[in-house]
């Protein structure tokens, strides 16, 4: 699990591992993350979520070894 931009500042953490039960969805992981890092709660609705290099929805079912990223709205340019 990786946090990018000011999400890493808010969590004090760039990278973390969590154990999940089978068939856990990306949305469920987000809920777990918000419990562990309550400072991300304010950004809950604007949080972008990716698995590997792709954006995924909350109902995306994670597999073993998936790298999940959480980050704020992007600002390239």
């Amino acid at each position, binding site marked *: 699990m*990786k946090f*990018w*931009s*000011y999400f890493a500042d808010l969590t004090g953490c760039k990278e973390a591992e969590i154990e999940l039960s089978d068939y856990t969805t990306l949305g469920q992981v987000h809920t777990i993350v918000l419990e562990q890092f309550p400072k991300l709660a304010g950004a809950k609705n604007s949080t*972008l979520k*990716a698995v*590997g*290099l*792709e*954006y995924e929805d909350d109902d995306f079912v994670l597999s073993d070894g998936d790298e999940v*990223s959480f*980050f*704020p709205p*992007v*600002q*390239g*340019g």
Partner: protein
Amino acid sequence: MKTELTISTAAINEAALAKRREMGKGMGAVIYFSGVVREIEGNAPITAIDYEAHEEMARHQFALIFDAVEKSWPVESVRLVHRLGVVPVNEPSLWVEVTAPHRAEAFDACQFLIDEMKQKVPIWKKPLPA
């Protein structure tokens, strides 16, 4: 469609980039866009912006956007450079070139490309206060 993507902390050398332009004889339009760091960010004076990227994902998302451009317009080539790290005020953080047969499609493709980038490419900025 030819594409060239550079994501790097090196300063963007617009003159050198423009010099390397390759344009087929059927092409009638070239657009360059440079996005330059402004001295004000969110109403506060700054000296620079520090750009961070999820670089591997950024490359992948740019590739998806380039694919979408190719499907939508008869664009001959896209070159795009995004600088990372500290970019001082008045220097470009983004440089885009689009070549196409006609003007309208070059403008449309270029604007689409930048709009999509601003939605999807994981790059973030941290303003450095003056």
